């Protein structure tokens, strides 16, 4: 690890001012950042500690949910209102990492966790995301865990997180506070596809701070399904988040997203379209799930994710519509 200074800001404003200086990074739970700094993947000179800001509340007011950025993964997952009204969120969090990491990991840090691509996390390799222009060894290398959707010829790294996939079907807004002020970004626009600039992963500007996650309405009929080699403590090979609004035997609204397959949390609009306005019968669900991998571009070792994605989406749809 490279030596750094630790700034403990008194308030949000001074946090943002401090983090706007070059070579700075916020630190929340530290569960991802410290690994990256120990491995010299990130080499900040200044860490700005978010802990003193005490922004860790979970507000469930009527139909709305607001999560402050330092709310712990474990606390959000166990919150009674979340369990009742947003089961997909609780399930996604409980399927993430391990209890120890969930006790440390925060909402803001979770959204910004970086890819698990082994080439990215080892400075002994070239990697366009870590060193722009150095190349992407994963494209012809060990890419079983890599993305099949949203890939570019510069980067095929998977967005690894689970919670953001769930937030995508909850139509969450991410509140960002920077020196110019506060803005809200829909979760679907927060993460970016790699394109020609895989090192730019979100719309976050330097110094900008995630100050909240807002979820506008309940999604009691929702579910998160994660498929993996190991029964626990592993990132998704494929996952599906589903929220359905079924009234009088008809799907009024369908929101479906996938994890483990995209370079960002992947919203499956074509699946949603195939469900909306239909009755949730077996044939409809199957036909909709069959659309899940539209546009997929597999690499050498991850082609199986195409069929696995369709089946995972189907199982998740079956579970919520049952």
């Amino acid at each position, binding site marked *: 690890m490279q030596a750094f200074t630790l700034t403990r800001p008194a308030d949000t404003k001074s946090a943002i001012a401090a983090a706007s200086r070059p070579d700075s990074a916020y630190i929340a739970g530290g569960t991802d950042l410290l690994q990256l700094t120990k491995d010299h993947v990130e080499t900040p000179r200044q860490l700005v500690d978010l802990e003193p800001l005490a922004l860790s509340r979970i507000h469930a007011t009527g139909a709305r949910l607001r999560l402050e950025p330092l709310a712990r993964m474990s606390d959000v997952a166990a919150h009674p209102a979340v369990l009742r009204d947003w089961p997909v969120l609780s399930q996604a969090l409980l399927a993430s990492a391990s209890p120890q990491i969930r006790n440390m990991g925060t909402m803001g840090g979770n959204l910004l966790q970086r890819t698990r691509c082994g080439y990215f996390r080892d400075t002994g390799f070239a990697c366009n995301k870590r060193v722009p222009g150095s190349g992407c060894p994963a494209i*012809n*290398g060990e890419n079983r865990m890599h993305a099949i959707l949203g890939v570019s010829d510069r980067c095929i790294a998977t967005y690894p997180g689970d919670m953001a996939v769930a937030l995508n079907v909850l139509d969450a807004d991410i509140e960002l506070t920077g020196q110019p002020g506060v803005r809200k970004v829909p979760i679907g626009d927060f993460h970016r596809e790699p394109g020609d600039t895989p090192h730019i992963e979100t719309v976050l500007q330097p110094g900008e701070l995630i100050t909240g996650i807002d979820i506008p309405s309940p999604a009691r009929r929702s579910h998160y399904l994660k498929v993996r080699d190991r029964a626990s403590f592993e990132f998704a090979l494929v996952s599906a988040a589903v929220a359905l609004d079924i009234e009088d035997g008809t799907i009024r609204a369908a929101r479906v997203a996938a994890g483990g397959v995209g370079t960002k949390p992947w919203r499956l609009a074509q699946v949603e379209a195939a469900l909306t306005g239909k009755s949730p019968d077996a044939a409809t669900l199957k036909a909709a799930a069959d659309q899940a991998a539209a546009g997929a571009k597999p690499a050498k070792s991850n082609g199986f994710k195409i069929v696995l994605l369709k089946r995972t989406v189907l199982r998740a749809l079956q579970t919520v519509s049952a």
Partner: protein
Amino acid sequence: MPMIGKPIDRTDGRLKVTGAARYAAEFRLPGVVHGVLVQSTIAAGSIAGFDLSEAEAMPGVLTIITPDNAGKLQHPEHVQQTVPGPLLQNKDILFNGQHIAVVIAGTLEQAEAAAAAVRVRYFNAEAATSMDALLSQAYPPKHFRNGARPPDSSRGDPDGTFNSGAVKLDLTYITPIEHHNAMEPHATLAAWNGDKLTVWTATQGISGAQATLAGQFGIDKSDVRIICPYLGGGFGSKGNTWPPATLAALAARTVKRPVKLVLSRAQMYTSNGYRPRTVQKIKLSSDIDGRLISVRHDGFSSMSQPALGEFSEPVALATEMLYACPDLAVTHRLVALNAPLPTYMRAPGEASGVFALESAMDEMAAALKMDPIKFRLQNYAETDPHENKPFASKALRACYEQGAQAFGWDKRSAEPRSMRDGNTLIGWGFATSTYPTNRQPAAVRVRMDRAGNVTVQSGTQDIGTGTYTVMTQVASDALGIPVQRIRFELGDSSLPPAPVSGGSQTVASVGPSVQAACAALIEKIKDMALSGGGWRGQSREALQIRDGLVVGADRRVPIGALVEKSGHPFIEVEVQTKPGEEKQRFSMHAFGAQFAEVRIDQDLGEIRVSRFVGAFDAGRVLNAKTASSQLIGGITYGIGMALLEETLVDGETGRVVNANVAEYLMPVNADIPDIQTIIVPNDDTTSNPLGAKGIGELPMVGVAAAIANAVYHATGVRVRKVPIRIEDILV
């Protein structure tokens, strides 16, 4: 009541759970400085030069050792645990992740930061990274089994008789590179005092470390002291004396201060061996009644460049002795790559070889439409069919019976895909396990003080398996003294020498010596009692030693009182025992039967082991609790091999891609079902006086095959490689 066999708690358990047990990296010395390795980022070529200016200017840096300035080391011949490199003795690069420099600084953080600032220029050469592409250039090992036997062996004419079988199979199985990933990293603290070297290091073999370091630095063995009271797991990775231990000592000599050198987890993927990748070709031919006619097992294992030493995964040794078949041949070949030197990993040879053999046996049973156990019994070897010797003992039939009974094997429906629970396919699989019973010379000293307390000492190791505990139990029975009054000391090369803790041989080697030394101590006590203890002139036979007392017909005297009377602070004896000619006369092996149930989501392909039963003929059990922990641990290790573990190497650069335990998957609690272990009682006093067979490796052998066979039974898909992945069975 004998102590041997009792499930007593570990004598060192409290020290371990309270953190008081000191591991190599935890020792402290005044003035210690820290060494951090710099490793190459190319796999083949040489070093063109270093730019050290930035690193040398960083805070706390004392020096940077590179091949340009490293002190010269010698290569001790004939020390089995010595690894020839990389030791900074030249500029050749033979694998990616090779040590090329050591940065020494005042603190660990300073050394790590400076290590990252070392710049290296290379001359690149083309690297050999694909084993499959080089299979045609495979060559026979030169020192197979350290020269103990040739790599090839045969009986009869397997190629000639192969075609006469009613069912013939010709199959290829593949096992990947696996890393031990012991919880404790490799760590060394080295300190020189003049020409005397003291080294605290994480090793499974203090004697080998002593001989290696003495040889490398050209000093006398008696001037090297190795200390290793506790080991946080080794699984074979700490058997050899790997270069980081030597480099720590070299660094300490260079800066004239004690140096601590601890590997990072990532560095452990290129610094201390691994299980090599294997490609195994198996040909089986059987008559219609399920009698094997001909067997061939041709094993290829991946290797480093020969300059780094030699290790060959002995995959086909179990094949030679496991089944009675008249015509058989086995071969072992190596494929040299630009890779680090592989090494022993829990059940080296058997774990990977029996996966292939017992998968093939299952395939043959399926082809014959025969119950897999019945097929094994049809070919049961009553004597060792390869060496034409009787087994020292063999209770494999009882393992089959008791394992099958506990598992409920008779309720298995034979057809694949015939057992299910909703969306879940259920499969039952079975495989045989075997591992040789090894023993080597070991010396033990026993000492009793005036208070009647006993210290038993041997330069053996406790690699986490419970040596401290079980040796205390052996001594307790042999001396008739409660375990609380006995202290077992190990892990110091100044103690009487014992072999490396590998090959499941510690109990069978050290245990008999503990017994013999205790027996000798008793005779010495009787001598004292008969000469000066008041029983002068009475018969030796009339005296008994128990509960810390010398008991005669007329009275009893505490042994401690005799010690006191002798005028010495303690009495002691030292004894060495060694294997006799039993090895020439008998074939010595442990056996087992492994039963797995898997549950597989038929759409999503997730494979979970839901039940496991292992029944073992492991000889005499010294402690029912540590033994069952070993069995459960071994089966768990096997589940990892079957479904999770795999080191991924980038084909272009030869560099490990998943050098961390987040991406190198090992089982977590959620992966491990209730494991039922059964010990089939079978004291084997032919193999050694204690009757133990060794229990560390046996339980992982056959697990991967049992699971692969269960996966086939569940799905109808035969997977001839591990780990078995979701994509292998998605249909």
